[in-house]
């Protein structure tokens, strides 16, 4: 098992703090959990706790950016994208301010805290705002690269991070290209497009499908916005069927973003693996992924279904 993406965030943020004096970090009483505490320890003069006040977190971030700083602001995804949605929209994205929102504990795998803390709508909310960039890293290395990109890019970025340790998928030589999908395996019968912690499950599903004589392409879409239209259109042309997988509601997230590209360019049968318009609940992450049908088996089943729908 590798690191949780939030752990990688904490490490790289400290490194970037050394490189860029303009980076200022804000947190809302969750610095031990979001891992901004690592930065706080190294650069106490550039770390500010706003307390349990997520709306103010975003507003102060906007002001710091307008004042020429590069603010990284962190809290749980629920309280960033959820509680402070309108501050993000009007104070950060409308003026296109250079605020980096690194939101941790996204998705069902928050686990035992339950539905009130499980953000399964944040991708949807964030990608609907003009000027926003939305990135969902799949492992520790991709997180390091994505956070580095965010620090060097001029404009608002939402980065979705997880609580649980995830397997390493990429090595240190991995290059992160903003807005470019990453093909992890080629195949001809179906394309599985995944994001975040579901990328590992998608690779596993492809192996299971191979054993059943089905050849699946696996594509990691880390940048949900702007989305890699070309990669999606090509996958549709090459394999004729698509499955999307995300630890997020099937409404408005990766599945919706891919569907939007397909219907306007090259409609092919598509299935969405995600949380089916329901709240989560308390439980250990593995049990939740199983109960809410977010496993490699569920992806493989969706792949078989979508292939059967091909004309």
């Amino acid at each position, binding site marked *: 098992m590798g690191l949780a993406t939030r752990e990688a965030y904490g490490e790289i943020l400290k490194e970037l703090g050394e490189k860029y004096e303009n980076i200022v970090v804000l947190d809302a009483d969750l610095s031990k959990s979001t891992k901004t505490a690592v930065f706080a320890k190294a650069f106490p003069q550039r770390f500010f706790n706003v*307390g349990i006040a997520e709306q103010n977190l975003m507003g102060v971030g906007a002001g710091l950016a307008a004042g020429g700083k590069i603010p990284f602001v962190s809290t749980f995804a629920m309280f960033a994208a959820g509680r402070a949605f309108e501050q993000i929209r009007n104070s950060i994205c409308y003026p296109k301010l250079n605020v980096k929102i690194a939101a941790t504990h996204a998705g069902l795998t928050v686990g035992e805290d339950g539905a009130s803390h499980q953000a399964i709508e944040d991708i949807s909310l964030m990608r609907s705002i003009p000027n926003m960039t939305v990135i969902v890293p799949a492992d520790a290395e991709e997180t390091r690269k994505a956070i580095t990109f965010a620090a060097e890019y001029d404009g608002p970025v939402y980065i979705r991070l997880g609580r649980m340790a995830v397997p390493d998928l990429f090595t240190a030589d991995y290059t992160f290209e903003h807005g470019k999908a990453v093909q992890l395996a080629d195949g001809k019968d179906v394309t599985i497009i995944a994001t975040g912690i579901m990328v590992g499950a998608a690779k596993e599903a492809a192996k299971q499908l191979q054993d059943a004589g089905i050849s699946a392409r696996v594509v990691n879409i880390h940048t949900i916005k702007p989305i890699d239209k070309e990669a999606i259109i090509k996958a549709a042309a090459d394999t004729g069927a698509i499955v999307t997988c995300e630890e997020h509601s099937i409404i408005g997230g990766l599945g919706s973003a891919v569907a939007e590209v397909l219907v306007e360019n090259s409609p092919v049968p598509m299935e969405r693996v995600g949380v089916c318009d329901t709240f989560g609940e*308390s439980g250990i992450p593995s049990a939740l992924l199983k109960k809410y049908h977010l496993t490699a088996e569920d992806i493989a089943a969706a792949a078989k279904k979508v292939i059967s729908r091909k004309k």
Partner: protein
Amino acid sequence: MAEKLTQEQVSQLEKYAQSIRYSIVQMVTEAQSGHPGGSLSAADILTTLYFAEMNVNPNDPQAAARDRFVLSKGHAAPVLYATLAEKGFFPKEELLTLRRIDSRLQGHPSMKNLPGIDMSTGSLGQGLSAAAGLALAARLDNNASRVYTVLGDGELEEGMVWEAAMFAAHYKLDNLTAFVDFNGLQIDGPISEVLSPLPIPEKWAAFNWHVIKIDGHDIQAIYDAIQTAKTIKGKPTMIVAQTIKGKGVCQMENIADWHGKAPSREQCELFLSQLNELETQ
């Protein structure tokens, strides 16, 4: 002024509080997850409300005339569950299912899951608004029921709390009584260092609330403050209850780290034996 509690009543309530603390430590250990510190600090407040004051009936949990309770600091769900079980809303054994998949005892209180929960909470800063709404609904119905809520002191940093504070005072919701569990700690450390909400009583007074300051582990004082609140007309009451986070388990007391950490099984045995000793003193 209402009657004082008798010494017998006080010691009976203290026994309930100890039993509730025992359940809190047990259930958080069993779940290996959850928030013991802020649950233990609020145990005496919930005990006094549920066993000496509130009109609630475990056999009729939806009764229209009942008093309502909103745990605004929803992460302290264990103290609410332990209190409801102690009161007979559901079997105590069920406490050990806390935070497990398919359990009615969600990590944060969910009113659709468990009888006795009057409002779903967990996102800090939202409970006082809901409590104000419940109080307003009762007034509109000429219902004499009263509404109680408990907030964390760190929770006071949420702006929405002060929007609700203004609302409740503006509409003179004197059937609403709130507590601040003033334990001085939040997750990242002491409230005075993280982002100070101090001074607390003066702020509520400035927002036109009736304010009472008490020792939040003194059952008689909690009871008296609730009785006073019932006599205050035209204003909601805020009871600022000075407490100790982790109260009752000396290794946990005043340690920020025990905010959201479960004891190991070995620690649990030690903590439970401490609580047993307290009970037999």
